[in-house]
């Protein structure tokens, strides 16, 4: 604690005063009766006295009827500013404010709570006011007396101890502060080191530090980060492994489907080929059938030729017979001519009556027979005529049939050609449709891919934009963080000292430590008083303390020096170590006071450790700010890049859905897989290839259709001719059949032959009868008649025979004509047969039959089977496409996942985690070790070290010994800090006797040493009001030096009327109220107080 300023109004003899204190040594000087002690009292009252206390009655102004008011500002150990204002008298009043900077104040508490709060802030062993048994008046305790004690309380301080306090807070504070005083330097060094390391790792309460600067936290955070990264990566790896296994299965599934699909396609190809073969076989079979029909026609023609030839042969027979008959007729005519001559002879002989009558009867009988024969002959002739007519008509019918056969063959050929052309047309139409679908598919697929690419680009664009937003947000966060960190860093370094200065300070601190350690040697002074005397002791250069009235032996132990002042009789100083080292230490301390304190003040800190901590924190903050700035920059660059990428991707457009649908509709019903396969096989020039294919097939189709029209026309013509021939055939057949029925069964030729034979027989019979008649006439009419008749008959027979000759000649001519006709028919038929070229037709038939045989037997393949197979392929293709898509998706995910790369990173991370865990463990063990060491050191110290009295005896005894130049070697305090004895020249005096034995001045000095030691250890302000008035100049010099040294550790307010005891002449203010010289502030109270006569500086 240290005071900032105090304001006093109407307080006893002071009308008003305002004093601002320096952090080090403050010499407040003024003449007697100026009010120095009043000011001191005011400070004490502000901190300790409730305003309504009766003890405040005396604070009333001497000049006016105003209430005394004191306002005191001070800074606690945590650097918090406090301002307390108390108005004494009557109802009084008090209020407490706090502030972080001493400028802006915030009300804290007021009234009764002010005292309670002050007791907490200043743990000096004073209980809160009020309650039963509460002290009246100004509360006192060991520490309140030590730090703010009034003039004349010297004895009280040395004789009283902590056991007189009414609260334990003073003991606790002192125990904490004094414990380090009793330590061995080496122990202290180790403890300080352990404490320093402990502070790095732990808070004051012993919990591990968790801030960003904590090394364990850093190591732990690193482990956590690496483990978190590993967890993410592990998941990724697991996903990748799962995906890899999935991809393997999908690949196998796809391969199985591909094999099945391939087998099915092969099967379809085989079936299609079989179907094509069947179609080709059908065409060829039809062709063979037509050729066979043609061949049958030819064979029918040959048959007709044979029958015609037979007819010709028959005719020739008839003709020969006719010629024979003609020859016989002609011979018979000659014979009959001879018979006429014979008859005419016989006439001449027989021209008598009997003979005439008999001849007439016989002639009449013969005439009847002849008449019958003539009738018969007429019938035979008519019938023969009919038969011959039928024969002629039959020949004509045969000719018609030959024509039909020929027409039928031609029509069959044309029909086959039509069937072949139709099949070819269908195939070409399919090809054209396929080519068109292929073009449409290609265009649809290109458009679809463009659309997909555009969609992907849009998605990616959006993702990039989102990412960019995140990065920009990150950048802003990092910038803000960087600014805050930089500001904090700058704030911590404000007013900071340079690195060189800092190094100088560290070096100086180390030198002081070394110099102090070098002084160590150990001194034990035993004071054994022969009578009760008062002893003041100072140990190891610390301010002297009053050991009280010594009665028994008093032992002082010191590291370096003991000073004893026994009553005012003698001063003893016992010192260890070489004088040069002592001088060296003193010089170094002075140097510290001169150089280090202002620098620390400039840096706004009270200790080097605090400065170190601030610098480390500032550096850490600055580094963190740089990191944050770098991260912000990186995030900005990333955001910019993402924006650009988003813009580029977002600009890509694809075809519309309508366009796609239109293009897809143009593909038609063909299976997509087949199209995709073809499309894939065409490669990049698919469009040209597909267009060429379509155009080529369309041209082929057009040509085919032209040819087919011509074939159709010819076929129609032939069909019409065939129909006409068949009609004629039917008509002829019908007529022939009707007439044929009337002729009875049997062959026409045979019938004709029979008829002609009957004709000949008839003719012969007629001729015999005629001859017989003539004979009878000749015989009946006797010679004459018979002769005449014979003549007539012979003449008639001769005429008849002449007729017969004529008839025979006619017959010969007729048969000759018929023969000519039949021969013509036969020639025509043979010509037809020759034209038909049976050999060529048979060759054609053989060729066609060979082709048919080559095409194998008829197939069992049906369209339904092919369609079923195609449907199966379609299903398999869909399954394959689905499996392929799934596989491609998995592969895509795998490609993103990184596969072995992720595993490699995982291994790296595992190693890094092991190392980080080792580092964390190392840090943890180190931290635990330092904590354990510190705690164990303290425990050992508890066991080994002395009580508080011994601790206080070290600085007090050392100082006292030094002050008294070794007269008093040490001072002994009891555990409650009551002075027990001083050790003087080997005599150990103890108890009040010793203290009593000391002079007033020496007791005053010893008490001052105690107070300074306490203030230094507590780092608390100390008020010395007209102390050391009984001290000689030499000791005053010593005290002056001591106070200047101690002023580096705590604030000192020295009220004195003799400033020259502490200040060099140059340090005194001249015209101004105060003057600062390094850590010393000289304050001319006469210039800051009113209501008192002005004084001048001595």
């Amino acid at each position, binding site marked *: 604690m240290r005071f900032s300023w105090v304001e006093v109004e109407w307080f006893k003899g002071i009308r008003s005063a305002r004093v601002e204190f320096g952090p080090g040594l403050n010499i407040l000087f003024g003449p007697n009766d100026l009010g120095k002690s009043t000011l001191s009292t005011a400070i004490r009252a502000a901190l300790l006295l409730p305003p309504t206390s009766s003890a405040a009655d005396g604070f009333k102004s001497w000049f006016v009827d105003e209430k005394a008011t004191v306002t005191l500002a001070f800074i606690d150990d945590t650097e918090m500013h406090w301002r307390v204002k108390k108005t004494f008298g009557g109802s009084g009043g008090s209020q407490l404010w706090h502030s972080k900077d001493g400028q802006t104040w915030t009300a804290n508490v007021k009234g009764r709570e002010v005292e309670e709060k002050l007791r907490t802030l200043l743990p000096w062993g004073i209980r809160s006011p009020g309650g039963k048994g509460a002290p009246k008046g100004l509360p006192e305790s060991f520490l309140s007396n030590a730090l703010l004690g009034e003039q004349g309380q010297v004895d009280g301080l040395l004789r009283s101890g902590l056991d007189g306090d009414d609260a334990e807070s003073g003991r606790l504070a002192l125990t904490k502060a004094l414990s380090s005083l009793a*330590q*061995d330097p*080496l*122990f202290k*060094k*180790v403890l300080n*080191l*352990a404490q320093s*390391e402990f502070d790095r790792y732990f808070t004051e309460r012993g919990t591990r530090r968790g801030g960003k600067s904590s090394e364990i936290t850093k190591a732990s955070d690193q482990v956590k980060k*690496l483990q978190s990264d590993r967890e993410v990566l592990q998941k990724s790896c697991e996903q*990748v*492994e799962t995906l*890899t296994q999935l*991809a393997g299965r999908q*690949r196998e599934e796809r391969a199985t489907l591909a094999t099945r699909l391939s087998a099915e396609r092969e099967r379809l190809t085989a079936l299609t080929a079989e179907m094509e073969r069947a179609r080709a076989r059908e065409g060829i079979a039809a062709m063979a059938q037509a050729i066979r029909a043609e061949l049958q026609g030819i064979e029918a023609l040959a048959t007709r030729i044979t029958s015609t030839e037979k007819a010709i042969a028959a005719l020739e027979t008839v003709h020969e017979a006719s010629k024979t008959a003609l020859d016989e007729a002609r011979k018979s005519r000659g014979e009959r001519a001879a018979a006429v001559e014979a008859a005419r002879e016989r006439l001449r002989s027989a021209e008598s009556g009997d003979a005439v009558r008999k001849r007439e009867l016989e002639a009449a009988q013969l005439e009847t027979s002849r008449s019958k024969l003539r009738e018969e002959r007429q019938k035979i002739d008519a019938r023969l005529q009919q038969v011959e007519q039928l024969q002629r008509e039959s020949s004509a019918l045969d000719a018609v049939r030959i024509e039909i056969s020929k027409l039928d063959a031609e029509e069959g050929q044309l029909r086959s050609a039509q069937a072949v052309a139709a099949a070819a047309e269908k195939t070409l139409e399919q090809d054209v449709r396929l080519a068109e679908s292929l073009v449409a598919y290609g265009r649809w697929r290109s458009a679809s891919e463009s659309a997909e690419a555009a969609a992907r680009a849009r998605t990616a664009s959006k993702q990039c934009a989102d990412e960019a937003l995140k990065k920009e947000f990150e950048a802003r966060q990092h910038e803000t963080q960087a600014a805050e960190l930089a500001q904090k860093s700058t704030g911590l370094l404000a007013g900071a000292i340079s690195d060189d200065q800092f190094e100088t300070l560290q070096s100086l601190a180390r030198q002081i430590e070394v110099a102090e350690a070098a002084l160590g040697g150990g001194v034990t002074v035993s004071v054994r008083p022969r009578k009760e005397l008062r002893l003041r002791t100072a140990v190891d250069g610390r301010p002297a303390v009053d050991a009280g009235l010594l009665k028994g032996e008093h032992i002082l132990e010191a590291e370096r020096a003991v000073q004893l002042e026994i009553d005012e009789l003698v001063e003893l100083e016992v010192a260890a170590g070489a004088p040069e080292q002592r001088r060296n230490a003193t010089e170094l301390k002075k140097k510290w006071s001169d150089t280090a304190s202002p620098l620390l003040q400039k840096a706004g800190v009270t200790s080097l450790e605090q400065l170190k901590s601030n610098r480390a924190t500032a550096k850490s903050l600055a580094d963190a700010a740089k990191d944050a700035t770098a991260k912000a920059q990186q995030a900005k660059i990333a955001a910019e890049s993402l924006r650009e*990428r988003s813009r580029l991707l977002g600009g890509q457009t694809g075809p519309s859905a309508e366009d796609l649908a239109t293009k897809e509709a143009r593909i038609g019903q063909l299976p997509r897989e087949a199209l995709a396969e073809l499309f894939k096989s065409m490669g990049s020039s698919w469009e040209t290839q597909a267009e060429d294919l379509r155009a080529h097939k369309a041209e082929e189709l057009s040509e085919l259709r032209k040819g087919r029209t011509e074939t159709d026309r010819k076929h129609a013509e032939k069909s019409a001719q065939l129909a006409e021939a068949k009609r004629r055939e039917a008509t002829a057949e019908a007529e022939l059949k009707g007439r044929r029925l009337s002729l009875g069964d049997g062959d026409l030729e045979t019938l004709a032959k029979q008829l002609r034979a009957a004709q000949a027989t008839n003719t012969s019979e007629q001729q015999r009868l005629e001859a017989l008649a003539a004979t009878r006439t000749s015989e009946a009419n006797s010679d004459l008649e018979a002769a005449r008749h014979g003549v007539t008959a012979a003449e008639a027979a001769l005429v008849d025979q002449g007729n017969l000759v004529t008839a025979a000649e006619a017959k010969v001519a007729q048969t000759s004509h018929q023969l000519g006709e039949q021969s013509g028919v036969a020639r025509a038929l043979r010509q037809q047969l020759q034209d038909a070229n049976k050999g060529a037709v048979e060759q054609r038939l053989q060729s066609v039959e060979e082709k048919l045989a080559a095409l194998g037997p008829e197939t069992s393949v049906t369209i339904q089977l092919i369609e079923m197979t195609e449907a199966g392929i379609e299903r398999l293709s869909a399954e394959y496409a689905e499996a392929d898509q799934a596989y491609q998706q998995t*592969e895509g995910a*795998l*490609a*993103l*996942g*990184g*596969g*072995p*790369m992720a*595993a490699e990173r995982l*291994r*790296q*991370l595992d*190693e*890094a985690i*092991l*190392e980080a865990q*080792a580092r964390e*463990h*190392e840090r943890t*063990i*180190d931290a*635990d*070790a*330092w*904590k*354990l*060491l510190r705690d*164990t*050191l303290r*425990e*050992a*110290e508890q*066991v*080994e*070290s002395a009580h508080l009295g011994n601790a206080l005896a070290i600085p007090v005894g050392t100082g006292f010994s030094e002050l008294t130049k070794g007269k008093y070697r040490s001072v002994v305090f009891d555990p409650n800090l009551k002075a027990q004895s001083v050790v003087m020249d080997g005599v150990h005096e103890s108890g009040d006797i010793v203290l009593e034995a000391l002079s007033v001045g020496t007791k005053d000095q010893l008490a001052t040493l105690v107070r300074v030691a306490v203030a230094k250890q507590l780092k608390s302000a100390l008020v010395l009001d007209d102390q050391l008035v009984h001290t000689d100049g030499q000791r005053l010099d010593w005290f002056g030096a001591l106070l200047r040294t101690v002023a580096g550790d705590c604030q000192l307010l020295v009220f004195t009327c003799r400033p020259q005891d502490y200040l060099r002449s140059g340090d005194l203010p001249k015209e101004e109220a105060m003057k600062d010289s390094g850590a010393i502030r000289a304050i001319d109270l006469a210039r800051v107080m009113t209501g008192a006569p002005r004084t001048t500086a001595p």
Partner: protein
Amino acid sequence: MTPHEEEDVVLKLLHTADWHLGRDFPSFTEDGRRKLRHARTDVLEKVFAEAERNAVDAVLCAGDLFDEPAPSHDWSNALAQVLQKRKWTRPVFLLPGNHDPLVNDSVWRNQKFRDSLPSFVRVVEEELLECPLGDSAVLYAVPCRSKAGQEDPTRLIPPRVAGDNRIRIGLVHGSTFDAGDWQTNFPISRDAAVQRGLDYLAIGDTHGFRYVPPDRLIPPTIYPGAPEATAFDEVDPGHVALVFINRQRRAIVDKRRVAEWQWETITVKNLASLRALAARTDLTSRVIRLTVEMKLPAPEHQEAVRLLEELAGTEARHAKVGVLQLRAEGLALDVSNLGPQVDELPAVLKETVRRLQELAKAPDTREAAERALFHLLQATKA
């Protein structure tokens, strides 16, 4: 190679791979990480110097040249600078691998980087690059287009057709079924060179120099390995392959070491071994994983600590070992034998030592107590 064979050589190639520029080494200290990162670019000077010294006709870089698709600009700039120093006409083929595949945001698509590459550098971007190497040879190169894949990259290389008597070289990146516990990535058939009619198949992925298959069948298929190792467990890293191909199209492969750093794993179990290690003079170019397993009395323990500090270095002192990964948790202090130093201590510290020795007997506090004793002895050392 005999002089006759040398005369007969018609094509010389330098084959390298797996530079892994920009790779981080998170298990090392910051200083070690920095050194190891920079070693990857430093070694490239030696790689290209080897190419220059042997006057090769082309340099084939078989993938994983960067550790990730889009590394920091520092690494792409470093590569560009190394290449810019060469005043070459011989082509250098940079092949994207699975670590740095040819994806959209990869370094290969970075126009600034591409602009900074000299004209003799050719990044393989085609699905299949077919590039003549003079009149009598042709190179077929297939880049990786993703981080992982199950297709053999050599399948895209057309087989040799009858009458083609040129020297045919393949350049791909992938695994030949040696990825251990991981699924094979970009699998390359062991007889891919034969199937594709290649006279030499240059591949990358594995970090150690290796013939594939190991019986060294002709034509050779080679992993040159990483020019600088990336891990302790790698077998025979640190090389490039010099390939000489003669008129008969026979390829002869010469393994050349280019690495600056050598990686070692050492375990010391006694002070003598540690002293011997500290006395070695070749440690500056070593990356060492040092495991210490020994329990020592205080003076020896202090010496061991000092030696380890010498090896690892301190803020004020350079490390003896180039890069050290120290596992010293096995170095234990024999607390029952703390030596004469304790006798000289003041009583309070002796008491402290005694208490800590007691605590060192309990399993829960053993480690901390041993370490505390160590600190105490260090702090009170004369």
